[in-house]
């Protein structure tokens, strides 16, 4: 059976060159980078080389990169590390409703520690308005953290504009670029951000390696204390193979970025065009300001996990923000924050493309998808409309206007 991986937002396969770069560090070059003899020095040099590669991807200095074990760790580190470092200056931070759990739940932890947190609303596209950010700032605000791109609806937020709002008020600005870095051009100088999170497995690098960019001179409280690894800012024996892999993946992403973006976007546009031909299927997220490989939809009258599993049975891997498809059994808070009614959010289905996808994959997907939807709608009691649930639905349609006539906006 054909296998088409359309879930690159969940994680990526390893690039073969990344795999090759890692292997020596799983074999003969197993030394601890803290050791002062040749075996340790080789490991240390490999890490520093990776640091340069990762820095280069986002136009930072190597000394501004702190390796972590994941995007989630980088986010926890940024939010809590800055909030704590600056708590004498104020105890208010601002995040948005589009954030990943690792930001939201870190923010909740800070609330328990006595911080005030503002969770910014978003519009129907998931867009965060810089003006609303500005209005949320108080004298107590020390940190603003906004997601760069959403892995759920693909939207790319106006980070540069929001960072400028923060800068004007002298507030530290962090962006969670886990879904963005390596997939679109991300330049910390141009964006003018103070901190930025990333994860290797989002750009064909390995699981187990993430990074936090921390602008030179900025004080941050460590999340993991211990030895002097990462200049005393993140302890623990370094995961050398994964860090080396992240470096290689960053180097490849930088070199191939525009080619990758171009080819993936072409396929994605074809996918979106095809899927929106199906009736009562709506695009979620922004029509144009979105990750090049990202296509996300809500399909009316059926549920996401059922779609996802029937597709998987046909070798097509995708994701869903429906309650039943999440292990936490909650519909995606991001979809709800965008004003999508809960019943419609159940029909969430997300395809995220990568360099391993081909034109034939798209054809295959479109064909199978139509069959799966048809099948599930036959089973659904709502195939002819939401019935008593229509009311909710109509209210939503009205308030959200033309967005849900995708033909007009795509």
């Amino acid at each position, binding site marked *: 059976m054909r296998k088409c991986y359309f879930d690159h937002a969940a994680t990526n396969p390893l690039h073969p060159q990344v795999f090759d770069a890692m292997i020596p560090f799983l074999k003969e070059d197993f030394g601890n980078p803290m050791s002062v003899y040749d075996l340790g020095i080789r490991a240390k040099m490999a890490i520093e080389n990776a640091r340069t590669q990762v820095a280069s991807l986002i136009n930072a200095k190597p000394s501004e990169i702190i390796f972590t074990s994941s995007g989630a760790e980088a986010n926890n580190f940024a939010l809590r590390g800055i909030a704590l470092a600056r708590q004498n200056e104020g105890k208010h931070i601002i995040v948005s409703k589009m954030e990943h759990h690792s930001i939201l739940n870190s923010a909740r932890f800070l609330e328990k520690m006595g911080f005030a947190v503002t969770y910014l609303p978003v519009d129907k596209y998931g867009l965060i308005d810089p003006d609303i950010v500005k209005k949320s700032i108080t004298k107590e605000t020390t940190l603003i953290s906004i997601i760069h791109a959403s892995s759920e609806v693909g939207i790319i937020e106006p980070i540069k504009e929001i960072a400028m709002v923060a800068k004007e008020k002298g507030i530290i600005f962090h962006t969670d670029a886990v879904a963005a870095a390596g997939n679109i051009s991300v330049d910390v100088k141009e964006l003018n951000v103070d901190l930025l999170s990333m994860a290797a497995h989002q750009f064909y690098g390995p699981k187990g390696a993430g990074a936090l960019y921390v602008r030179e001179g900025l004080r941050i409280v460590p999340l993991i204390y211990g030895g002097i690894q990462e200049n005393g800012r993140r302890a623990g024996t370094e995961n050398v193979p994964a860090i080396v892999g992240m470096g290689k993946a960053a180097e490849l992403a930088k070199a191939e970025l525009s080619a990758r973006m171009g080819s993936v976007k072409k396929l994605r546009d074809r996918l979106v065009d095809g899927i929106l031909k199906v009736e009562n299927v709506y695009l979620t997220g922004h029509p144009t300001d979105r990750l090049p490989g990202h296509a996300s939809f809500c399909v009316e009258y059926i549920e996401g*996990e*059922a779609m996802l599993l029937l597709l998987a*049975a046909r070798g097509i891997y995708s994701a869903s923000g429906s309650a039943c*498809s999440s292990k936490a059994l909650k519909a995606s808070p991001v979809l709800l924050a965008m004003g999508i009614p809960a019943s419609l959010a159940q029909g969430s289905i997300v395809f995220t493309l990568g360099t391993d996808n081909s034109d034939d994959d798209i054809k295959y997907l479109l064909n199978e998808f139509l069959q799966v939807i048809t099948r599930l709608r036959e089973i659904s009691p*709502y195939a002819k409309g939401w019935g008593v649930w229509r009311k909710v639905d109509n209210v939503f349609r009205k308030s959200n206007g033309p967005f849900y006539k995708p033909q007009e906006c795509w």
Partner: protein
Amino acid sequence: MYSEKVMDHFTNPRNVGEMPDADGVGTEGNPTCGDVMKISIKVKDGRIVDAKFKTFGCGAAIAVSSMVTEMVKGKTLEEALSISKETVANELGGLPPQKMHCSNLGADALKKAIEDYKSKQM
């Protein structure tokens, strides 16, 4: 995650459909929070002779509906009422714990269908 039997009933659900001349219809659930099952039954001489379902929901929900409509056929109303979440899950070779609660609405929808039938008899 799902047992083979669940996958079988999910991918090849039995008894999908409406029943224009149903003797009883029961709906359980709510699309805003997850799954909805609608079960229609035909009753003859105190026995359920046919059952159909329509379900909005996840794989487990569809498999449960399919299984319940299979289990119920030929049963007396009393026997049918004794079908529970657990007996359905057991017939399916088990359900993931988090699915036991939300997606296992078949028995409840069936009870409602039987009540519907009974109320019409009065």
